[in-house]
């Protein structure tokens, strides 16, 4: 593993803007992107990435790889929270363990987008159906997290608050970001199949603007992540270690799964990044609602303050090296 790809990743505009945001907090600059502007960009990115993914899927058709890959993605988002839960239970109660584990089983769309930009700058191809994997990995992790709470700690909870399966499903499947991503994917698919002129008309909005909007959003993410970082001190070194070790561990499993699926290197990187990334939006929102016993500072400051920056700045090029090392090995 050379230093070069990391440096190259750091010198790309999105990562630079991320760093600028983080440094502004360090230097106590009053740079601020007030609410709800970040929400505008996050909605836009989800819509655009879904729409483009839908078009790609329609174009390439459902190849042999699609179904196995999507199934493996869902499987990973079910297994990772279980592993995480077991590790976290050494130090934390059921509620906190389940909430943090769910976050690591789920994904971060912005990390995924950054990985796509990284691949584009390296001129490595990848397929649109990986956006489908992105969309499908958010909900199962939430479900596993809530089931863990339901079964591991039913006696501690006030009676009136028993979780119903329907509530769990609703919270996980109809979460705003999952919904927007999936439905934009469908819109993209339908547009490509029945109304191809619509693609060209959307292109300036969903295509050309994307990179710049990504930079702007990462500027804000840098600010937000750096603001959350100091709160990690209260979380203790166990959690800090977990926030770095867990993505690496997940990436390691992920790369072998990718190899087993015979994914090419572009798709393999995206698959690994999905495994390694952690949710700081959908899962925290769902957990805050359904598991108020868990401390939100734990699952937010780890995922957002540490895992996210680590993945964006160092993780992606590291995973690329991993992919380049493991995937080309002679078949299992």
């Amino acid at each position, binding site marked *: 593993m050379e230093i070069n790809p990391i440096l190259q990743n750091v010198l790309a505009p999105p990562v630079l803007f991320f760093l600028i945001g983080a440094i502004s907090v360090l230097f106590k600059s009053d740079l601020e992107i007030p609410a709800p502007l970040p929400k505008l960009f996050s909605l836009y990115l989800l819509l655009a990435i879904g729409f483009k993914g839908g078009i790609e899927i329609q174009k390439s058709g459902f190849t042999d790889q699609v179904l196995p890959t999507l199934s493996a993605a869902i499987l990973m988002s079910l297994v990772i929270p279980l592993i995480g839960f077991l590790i976290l239970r050494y130090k934390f109660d059921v509620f906190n363990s389940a909430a943090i584990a769910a976050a690591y089983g789920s994904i971060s769309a912005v990390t995924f987008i950054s990985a796509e930009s990284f691949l584009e700058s390296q001129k490595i191809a990848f397929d649109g159906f990986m956006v489908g994997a992105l969309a499908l990995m958010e909900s199962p992790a939430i479900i596993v997290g809530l089931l863990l709470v339901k079964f591991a700690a039913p006696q501690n909870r006030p009676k009136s608050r028993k979780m119903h399966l329907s509530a769990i499903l609703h919270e996980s499947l109809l979460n705003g970001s999952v919904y927007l991503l999936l439905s934009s994917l469908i819109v993209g698919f339908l547009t490509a199949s029945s109304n191809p002129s619509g693609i060209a008309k959307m292109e300036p909005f969903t295509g050309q603007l994307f990179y710049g909007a990504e930079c702007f959003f990462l500027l804000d993410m840098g600010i937000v992540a750096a603001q959350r970082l100091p709160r990690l001190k209260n979380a203790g070194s166990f959690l800090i270690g977990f926030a770095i070790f867990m993505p690496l561990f997940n990436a390691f499993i992920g790369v072998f799964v990718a190899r087993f699926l015979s994914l090419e290197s572009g798709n393999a990187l995206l698959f690994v990044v999905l495994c390694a990334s952690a949710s700081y939006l959908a899962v925290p929102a769902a957990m805050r609602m359904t598991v108020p016993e868990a401390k939100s*500072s734990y699952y937010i400051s780890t995922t957002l303050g540490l895992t996210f920056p680590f993945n964006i700045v160092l993780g992606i090029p590291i995973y690329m090296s991993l992919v380049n090392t493991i995937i080309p090995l002679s078949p299992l």
Partner: protein
Amino acid sequence: MIFSERELDAIIKTLEKANVPGYTVMKHATGRGPERVVTEDMEFTGLGANAHVIVFCEQELIDKMRDNIRDDLSYYGGVAYISEATPL
């Protein structure tokens, strides 16, 4: 009465059931409670600041709602205080 935006629907339902004459909601409040962390944490992409709800109503209505609201607040977090006020 101050609590998380995500509990807003439940509280409003309680208010409606108690037949309050009206209420006012101010979203996007942030703050810190005795144990939990600063809630700005959740605001960063628009999910989950606190809401500040004001209700002007008769004492009896308050008594009717008290238990339900207390229940919600103790579980999800939030505070509710009563002040005397006379109509202008």
